[in-house]
């Protein structure tokens, strides 16, 4: 098993990388950690003729916790979040989520920006960043723009990013000290993609609560009614709200999927309310 032939160029800056992709007439892809793209190349699921390596661009690994939000470079490694090298402004949630992504050897290469841009709907970072209300700063040939994490993913492996855009940084709002979260993932085997992922964040000091569901078949969903019940302290009918949200999915779930998703959202909600 080996990839179809391609050219490889290492970019030294974000601008240079964008220029290389924009100036290429064929099919060019950025590669960071390559932990999703690598298998897809080997299986020839995708066959770009140019890879522009952005894993050595220092600016993409910058971290700044000084402002209102934690700013994480798109090249931040999962393992660096897991090990607490990156400050956790979400009361332990970032570290917990990072430690559960795939396996350590993958976490040593895989990046936050790469995970978001790849947009596997069952991946951990898209669901987590949506629940936290993060914003994503991207840069392309047309300049910079900011995308709310909830608006990034259009469908499985599909985002609103254009081919020349790079995830430069992710801005994660800092949670209040009293804020709580819940995170549940159903995997038959440790480290595989979740069959169902539920993330809940409740930050009453900011009047904020959000529940998000991820799974293999649909883009990650913000559960609007569930979030509404949670922001009120869970006094309303959480079960009915979850039912209403899951029933509104554009891609209807079968009975088994419904049961799994319902259970995981309930568990994540319960953890966040406890």
């Amino acid at each position, binding site marked *: *098993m080996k990839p179809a032939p391609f050219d*490889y160029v290492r970019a030294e800056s974000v601008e240079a990388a964008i220029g290389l992709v924009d100036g290429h007439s064929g099919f060019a892809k950025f590669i960071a950690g*390559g*932990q999703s793209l690598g298998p897809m190349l080997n299986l020839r699921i995708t066959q770009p003729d140019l890879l522009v390596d952005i894993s050595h661009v220092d600016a993409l690994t910058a971290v700044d916790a000084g402002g209102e939000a934690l700013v994480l470079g798109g090249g931040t490694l999962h393992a660096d979040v897991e090990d607490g090298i990156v400050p956790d402004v979400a009361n332990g949630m970032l570290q917990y989520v990072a430690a559960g992504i795939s*396996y350590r*050897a*993958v976490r*040593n*290469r895989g990046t936050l920006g790469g995970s978001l841009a790849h947009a596997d709907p069952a991946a951990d970072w898209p669901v987590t960043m949506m629940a936290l209300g993060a914003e994503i700063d991207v840069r392309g040939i047309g300049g910079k723009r900011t995308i709310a994490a909830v608006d990034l993913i259009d469908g499985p492996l599909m985002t609103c990013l254009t081919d020349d855009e790079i995830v430069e940084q992710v801005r994660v709002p800092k949670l209040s000290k009293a804020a709580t979260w819940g995170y549940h993932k159903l995997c038959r085997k440790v480290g595989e993609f979740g069959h169902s992922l539920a993330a809940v964040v409740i930050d009453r000091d900011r009047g904020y609560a959000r529940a998000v569901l991820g799974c293999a078949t649909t883009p990650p969903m913000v559960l609007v009614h569930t979030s509404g019940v949670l922001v009120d302290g869970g006094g309303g009918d959480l079960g009915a709200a979850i039912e209403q949200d899951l029933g509104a999915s554009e891609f209807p779930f079968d009975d088994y999927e419904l049961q799994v998703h319902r259970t995981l959202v309930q568990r994540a909600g319960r953890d966040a309310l406890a």
Partner: protein
Amino acid sequence: MHRHALACEHGVCGACTILLDGRPVRSCITLAGQASGSAVRTVEGFDDDAAMTIIRQAFHEAHGLQCGYCTPGMLVTVRDILKRGKAADQPEIRRELSGNICRCTGYMGIVEAVELARDRLKQVGLAPD
């Protein structure tokens, strides 16, 4: 390089795990071009490593290998797990080793070998307590 196992070739089995700048990575999904300028250490590069000598002896004694195909990746991964102090008990060892598949299903012996190596490494101060 002879002992660095080429197995699933799409990042699933862990047999090809090597150290890149001291951190375990799956070599089958790491481009050589990306590794240019980095330190690469395969299972063959540990002959002067005291911790690896102890781990190999533990695998030998606890029957931590059958056909041996997964062993290069197991050894590199286990050394990292033990150095990071992530082998407190059997459930943790199994969780940390979940990215390394042994198709002989020799996990009982492998987990036992990790416990044995952990205890010996602690005794000589090569793994955290």
